[in-house]
């Protein structure tokens, strides 16, 4: 892990402007069949910024990001405690419909997972399930342009998406998420399965997207967090008395601060490569 490289990235980064709170996370914990995977997470996530979540493997990063669009609902035995306020409304209120939540809060996964259908059908899936029957062509084109994929695929929209390269597939998945016009995009290690060039393209894309979208990204790659994120949250593993591993939020601050003057020793050890 090159600290010099990270410092260069940070030098170019302006201090993030204060903006609206999109998510207010209050004492959130997740348990699987009673065993706590993460606990006591409290943080605010701001609009039109990129917020990165970093930390060693097993610290519950992915579990945490899946709380925001209620994907944990799909795992039998998983239970989310605490509150996540989205524009002031608790996502876990019994009146809230998880399907409506996911329409507004999109997600991109670790491994590109296009549907085994045409490129067009992949992007059109979201609008179709939402019942947007008009202007589907325009929506598809707009989403593909936003994901910087249009020029590469415009002549083969009817071809199977599985024929694309890994990097193209992941940008297709981003386009697919954008087509439902969400406000927030969750990205769970979106570049971890990609080569460096494809990774760079995804990162450039994130920079463009943050003008319109709020982005939350989980990454195990600290340089990536330093390059793209305005704010960074560092998670770690807390070992319980009987060896149970629970993820906790150690420190959350402007990315520059996290990487240059962390206030917690554990953060410092991690970002300087002494741990994890």
């Amino acid at each position: 892990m090159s600290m010099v490289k990270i410092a260069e990235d940070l030098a170019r980064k302006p201090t993030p402007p204060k903006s609206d709170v999109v998510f207010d996370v209050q004492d959130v914990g997740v348990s699987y069949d009673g065993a706590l995977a993460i606990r006591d997470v409290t943080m605010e996530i701001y609009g039109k910024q990129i917020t990165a979540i970093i930390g060693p493997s097993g610290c519950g990063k992915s579990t945490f990001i899946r709380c925001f669009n209620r994907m944990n609902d799909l795992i039998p035995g998983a239970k989310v405690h605490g509150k996540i306020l989205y524009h002031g409304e608790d996502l876990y209120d019994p009146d809230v419909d998880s399907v409506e939540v996911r329409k507004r809060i999109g997600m991109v996964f670790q491994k590109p997972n296009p549907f085994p259908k045409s490129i067009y059908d992949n992007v059109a899936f979201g609008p179709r399930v939402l019942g947007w029957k008009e202007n589907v062509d325009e929506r598809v084109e707009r989403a593909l342009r936003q994901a910087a994929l249009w020029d590469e695929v415009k002549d083969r929209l009817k071809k199977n998406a599985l024929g694309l390269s890994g990097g193209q597939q992941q940008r297709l998945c981003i386009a697919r998420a954008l087509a439902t016009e969400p406000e927030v995009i969750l990205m769970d290690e979106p570049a971890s399965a990609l080569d460096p060039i494809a990774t760079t393209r995804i990162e450039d894309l994130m920079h463009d997207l943050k003008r319109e979208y709020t982005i939350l990204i989980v990454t195990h790659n600290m340089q990536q967090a330093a390059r793209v994120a305005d704010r960074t949250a560092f998670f770690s593993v807390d070992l319980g008395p009987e060896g149970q591993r629970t993820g906790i939020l150690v420190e959350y601050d402007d990315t520059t601060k996290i990487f240059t003057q962390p206030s917690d020793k554990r953060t410092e050890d991690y970002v300087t490569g002494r741990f994890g």
Partner: protein
Amino acid sequence: MSTHAESLTALGLRSHRRRYGEAVVKVLLGICALISVLTTVGIVAALFIPAFEFFQDVSILDFLTGTEWAPLFEPAFFGVVPLVVGTLSVTFWAVLVAIPLGLGGAIYLSEYASSRMRRLLKPLLELLAGIPTIVFGYFALTFFTPLLRDIGIEVDVFNALSAGLVMGVMIIPTVASLSEDAMAAVPRDLRDGAFALGSSRMQVATRIVVPAATSGIVAAFVLGISRAVGETMIALVAGGLQPNLTFDPRQAIETMAAFIAATGNGDVPTGSLEYKTIFAVGATLFVMTFALNVVAIRLVQRFREEYE
């Protein structure tokens, strides 16, 4: 409370309409699943209610221990032992063929065959498995029984031996494919470990793979036995309809399934004692195969827990 609800509506996080469609679909799918349950309930009711009535007229002890079966004669005898013996006799010969050949084929396919060989052999096994049982019955009666006579085995026109041996060939694919599945589930590194110690292919197959897959292989055997016990057409066409109490495979016998088919197709009046014998024998057959199936399902479960 109303302001809370309103703000949810403003954000649109609350569903605009209740998703009745989703609930309806779930109920419809549940009904589909229920049909399987009703089938079992129906089978149990169809067999055991008339069987229970039957046992009001015929003592269950006489039924289970009686050595003479002559339900349609006067005086009638309702001893099921000859039918059970006939069934077991045919099953014995079938199993004698199906278990060694099925297991041998499975070991070959799993441990020896190249992928090209497998692509050739497996569809052939499926072809064999796809042949209707009436065709095997025809083959046993019109080809195999005369063949046995030609090579000097003095069998009757209908006999347990021919029916059993042909049934055995029919069951080979069942035993082979289930055993092969079990062996395929044995982890690669177990084999690699043994090969690394200088074991030969045969040693790996017989001392590592087969023992490791034992419960799955035994399950395949048990299911094979269950199929033989319940198989109707070969026994009906080639085994005969004479309830002789004999283990001599050269003689005609009558299996439980053959009796049911032979009696069930006649115009036996509903409610008569003869009609009810169908269900008493059917219940006996069902209990035997059910016990075998439960054992097989248990073994498969245990095997899955070990390796999956």
